[in-house]
C-alpha cells in the first residue's frame, strides 16, 4: 500500500486515503462499494446498449436481412437480461443508495458493511455467469424466460444464465436488507422518520420489494433450470406441469421489479427538483407515503401481465382494479413535484433538465399504462410495440433519466470534480429528443398491432420503424456523451472543494466534505431541522458536535 503525506487543508478523502487495488476490492466502505457498482453497471449498460443498437439496425428494414432470426432473438434476450438484471435493478439503489443513504441519515456506514461488499461479489459472479452464457452461443428465451419454451425447447446455456440471474438476485436482496436495517437503526439523533429526505423513503420502499419479491423469482428461475436439467415436471404440461404457473410466479416479482427501477428514480427527482427550485418538496408526507403505497399495491397487480392467457375474468377484474389504483400514487407524486416548482427559484442546471425530462417521459409512460390497465384495450395491445414503448418510457425515460439526474447532481460530491455544464445540457437535450423519436413511433406501431420480438415485419410499417431507428442513433449519442465527458472530468473537470456547490439542503451537502471523508462525519451529527428547509437558510439541517475535551484518566481517555 502506498502512503501519501497530506499538508494543510488537503485532507485525505475516501478516494485517495488508500489507493491499492486490494483497498478497493476488499473495501467495506459504502462509498467505495458504490463506485465499484458504478463502474460495473456502466460497462453492462454499454453492452446492453450495443445489443439494442443491433436490434434497431435490423428493424430499419422490414425484411430480416442484417441478422439471422436466431441471432436477432439472442440480441433482444441479451438486451433485456443485461439491461434489467445487470443495469436497471442495481442502478440507483446499488450506486446512489449505497453512496448516499448513510450520508443522508448521518451514519458512519450501512448496517452490514461486509454484506454490502458480498452483494457486489454476488452481483459480479452473477454477471459473469450471464456473460459466459452469452459468449458461449447466447440464449434466445427473452428476458422473461417463459416456459415451456425456456425449460423444454430453448437451446444454449439457459441454465447458466438463470444461475447468473439467481446470484444477481441475491446481491439485490443483500442490498435491500442492508438498507432496511440501516434506515431503521442507524439514523442520527434528531433524524426522525419525517425528517428523512424523500430519497431515503423511496429507498425504503424499494428495499421492501427487493427483500420480499426477489426470493420468489430466484426460486422460480431455479425451478426452470431444474426442469431443464432433470426433466421434473413443474411448468411443462408434457411433464405434468403448468406453464401459466410460471407466469404467475415470474410476474409476482417482475411487476414489483418495475417499481424497484422507478421508485429510486422518483426519490432522486424529489431531491433534484427541491434542490434546483430551492423549495421544500410540496406535500412531503403524501410523497413519502405514496412510495410505500406503490410498493404495497405493486405486489398485487401482477396478473395484468396475463389477461390474454385465459386467466379467469374475475381474477382479471381484481388485477385490473388494483392496477388503476396503483396509478394514483404516481399521479400524486407528479402533482406534488409541480407544486414544488410553483413559487420556487428554478435553476436550469443539467440535473434539473434531466428531472424535468423525467417528468415529461414518465408522465407519458404512466398515462399509456392506463390503456394497459383497462382489460379490453390491454388484450389488443399486449405483446405489441405499444408495450415496448410503454415500458421503455417508464424504465428508460423514467428510471434512466432519474439515474442521469442523480449522476450529475452528486457527481461533484462523489468525485470532487464538476462535469462540463454545456456538454451536460446538450446531452440532456439529445437524450430527451432521441428518446421520443425512438419510442413514440412505437406506440403507433403497437396500436396497429406490430408484435414485439419480431425479426421482420410487414412493409407498411417501415416508415415508422425507420424513424425509430433514426431516433435511437440520437439517443445513443446522448448516452455516449456523458460517458465521455464524465470520464474526462475526472482528470480535467473543475476541482470542487466546497461542501455544497449547489447550495442544496441535506446532511450530505451541509456536513460532509467534498469528496467525503472516509468516515463520512467526524462524529455522529445531530439533526435539528426537517429536510429541504430552504426557508431558513441561516439554520443548518444539523451539526457535528464538537469533541468533548479529553480528560486524562477519564472514561474517554
Amino acid at each position, binding site marked *: 500500500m502506498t502512503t501519501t503525506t497530506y499538508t494543510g487543508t488537503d485532507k485525505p478523502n475516501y478516494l485517495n486515503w488508500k489507493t491499492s487495488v486490494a483497498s478497493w476490492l476488499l473495501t467495506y466502505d459504502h462509498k467505495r462499494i458504490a463506485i465499484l457498482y458504478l463502474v460495473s453497471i456502466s460497462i453492462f449498460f454499454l453492452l446492453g446498449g450495443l445489443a439494442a443498437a443491433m436490434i434497431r439496425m435490423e428493424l430499419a428494414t422490414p425484411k430480416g436481412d442484417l441478422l439471422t432470426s436466431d441471432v436477432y432473438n439472442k440480441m433482444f434476450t441479451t438486451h433485456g437480461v443485461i439491461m434489467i438484471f445487470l443495469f436497471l435493478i442495481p442502478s440507483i439503489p446499488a450506486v446512489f443508495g449505497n453512496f448516499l443513504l448513510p450520508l443522508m441519515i448521518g451514519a458512519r456506514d450501512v448496517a452490514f458493511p461486509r454484506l454490502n461488499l458480498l452483494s457486489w461479489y454476488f452481483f459480479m459472479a452473477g454477471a459473469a455467469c450471464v456473460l459466459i452464457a452469452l459468449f458461449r452461443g447466447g440464449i434466445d428465451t427473452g428476458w422473461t424466460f417463459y416456459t415451456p419454451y425456456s425449460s423444454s425447447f430453448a437451446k444454449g446455456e439457459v441454465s447458466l444464465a438463470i444461475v447468473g440471474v439467481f446470484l444477481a438476485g441475491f446481491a439485490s436482496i443483500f442490498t435491500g436488507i442492508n438498507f432496511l436495517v440501516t434506515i431503521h437503526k442507524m439514523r442520527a439523533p434528531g433524524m426522525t422518520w419525517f425528517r428523512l429526505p424523500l430519497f431515503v423513503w423511496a429507498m425504503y420502499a424499494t428495499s421492501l420489494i427487493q427483500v420480499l419479491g426477489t426470493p420468489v423469482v430466484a426460486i422460480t428461475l431455479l425451478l426452470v433450470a431444474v426442469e431443464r436439467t432433470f426433466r421434473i415436471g413443474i411448468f*411443462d404440461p408434457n411433464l405434468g406441469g403448468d406453464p401459466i404457473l410460471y407466469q404467475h410466479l415470474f410476474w409476482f416479482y417482475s411487476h414489483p421489479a418495475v417499481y424497484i427501477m422507478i421508485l429510486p428514480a422518483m426519490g432522486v427527482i424529489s431531491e433534484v427538483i427541491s434542490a434546483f427550485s430551492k423549495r421544500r418538496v410540496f406535500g412531503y408526507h403524501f410523497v413519502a407515503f405514496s412510495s410505500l403505497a406503490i410498493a404495497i399495491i405493486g405486489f398485487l397487480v401482477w396478473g395484468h401481465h396475463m389477461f*390474454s392467457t*385465459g386467466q379467469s375474468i374475475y381474477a382479471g377484474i381484481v388485477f385490473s382494479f388494483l392496477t388503476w389504483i396503483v396509478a394514483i400514487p404516481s399521479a400524486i407524486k407528479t402533482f406534488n413535484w409541480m407544486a414544488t416548482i410553483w413559487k420556487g427559484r428554478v435553476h436550469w442546471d443539467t440535473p434539473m433538465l434531466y428531472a424535468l425530462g423525467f417528468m415529461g417521459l414518465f*408522465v407519458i409512460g404512466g398515462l399509456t399504462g392506463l390503456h394497459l390497465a383497462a382489460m379490453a384495450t390491454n388484450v389488443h395491445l399486449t405483446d*405489441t410495440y405499444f408495450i415496448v414503448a410503454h415500458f421503455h418510457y417508464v424504465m428508460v425515460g423514467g428510471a434512466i433519466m432519474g439515474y442521469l439526474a442523480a449522476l450529475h447532481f452528486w457527481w461533484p460530491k462523489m468525485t470532487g470534480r464538476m462535469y462540463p455544464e454545456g456538454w451536460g445540457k446538450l446531452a440532456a437535450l439529445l437524450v430527451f429528443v432521441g428518446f421520443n423519436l425512438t419510442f413514440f413511433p412505437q406506440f403507433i406501431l403497437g396500436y396497429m398491432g406490430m408484435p414485439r420480438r419480431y425479426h421482420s415485419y410487414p412493409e407498411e410499417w417501415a416508415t415508422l420503424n425507420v424513424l425509430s431507428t433514426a431516433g435511437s442513433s440520437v439517443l445513443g449519442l446522448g448516452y455516449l456523451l456523458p460517458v465521455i465527458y464524465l470520464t474526462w472530468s475526472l482528470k480535467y473537470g473543475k476541482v470542487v472543494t466546497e461542501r455544497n456547490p449547489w447550495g442544496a439542503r441535506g446532511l450530505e451537502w451541509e456536513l460532509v466534505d467534498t469528496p467525503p471523508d472516509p468516515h463520512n462525519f467526524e462524529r455522529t451529527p445531530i439533526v435539528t431541522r426537517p429536510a429541504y428547509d430552504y426557508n431558513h437558510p441561516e439554520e443548518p439541517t444539523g451539526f457535528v458536535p464538537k469533541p468533548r475535551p479529553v480528560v486524562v484518566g477519564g472514561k474517554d481517555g
Partner: protein
Amino acid sequence: MWNFPLVPPTASKEGADISLLYWAITLLAVVFGGIVLFGVIYLAVRYRADNNAVDRSNATESDLRVELAWTIIPLILALVIFGWATKLYADIYAPREGYYEVFVIGKQWMWHCQHPNGVRENNILTLPAGRLVKVSLISQDVIHAFSIPAFRVKRDAVPGRYNAMYFTPTKPGEYHLFCTEYCGTKHSEMIGKVVVLPEDEFQAWLEKGGQGLATATTSMGGGAAGGGTLTLAQQGEQTFKALGCNACHLNPNSAVKVPDITKTWGGEIKLADGRTVKGDEAYIRESILNPGAKIHAGYQNLMPPYQGQVSEEQLVQLIAYIKSLAGDSGGGK
C-alpha cells in the same frame, strides 16, 4: 414516403367498441399529460431563479385540500374507465352462445385451423362476415398467441389447455394474423391472414371443401385449404374407432361398465370425490389423456391414459365427435 397507415383497420364489432375505449383513454391521457407537461414548463420558466418580477409570497408547502383534489379527481376518472373497460371485456371474452366454432392449433411455427365441416387451413383462417365466431385455441408445443389486430382481439395458445376467443367480423377483406407470444426461431414468420367473406361466398367456399379461392396459398406461407368429405365430427368418429375407444365406449356389449359419453358434453358430471364438474373441452381432453384425474361417481378407473398417443388434431376431432353425440354440431347451432 408519406403514404403509410397510422391506425389499423377496424373490421369487427368488438374492434369498434375497443377502439372507442382506446381513444377515450387516449383523450384522458392527452388532457392529463398536457396539464403536466405544459404546467411543468410554464412553472419552471415563470419561476426561474433570475426572474424577480413574480410573486413568491405565501408559498405554502402542503395543503390537504389540493392533495385531496388531485387524489380524488383522478381516482374517480380511473374508476369510471375501469368500469367501462371491464364491462366491455367481460362482454367479449365471457362464454357466449350461438357461434361458428373454429379450432386453431398453434405449433412451431404455423397455425393449423379446423372448420367444423372438416375443412382445414394453414396460416389462413377464412370466416364469414356478420356471424359471431368462437376460436378454440391450443398449442402443441410452446405458448403462442393468436392476434388479429383488425379485430382488436388476442388470446394465448397454451399447451395443455383450451382457450376461447370470440369476435364478430364485419367487413369482408384480408387482415393480418400474428403470433404475438415469443415462440422461438421463426416467431416472426408465424404469421398469416384472416380472410373474411360475405356469408354466401363463405358458404359456397365451405361446400367446395375450402377450394377455389385464389388466396389459398400466398407468399406469407399460407398452406392450401384442404379436407376431405368428412366433417370434423366424422373424422373424430374415425379416430374414435382407430384408437379402439369403441371397444368399451358406445358398445352395448362391452364387458366393462363405462360412463355414457353421449351425455358428457355440456353436462354436469358428478365425480367420485363428490365434486361436480362441467363437461367442457378441458374435461374431455383430460379424460382422454389422463382418465384417472377425474373419475365419474360410480365408476372405476379402468381406462388406460392416452397421454402421448393422441395428437392435438385428433383430440380436436374427438371433442367435436363427442359434442356431436350430444347434439352439438359446433357450426353455429
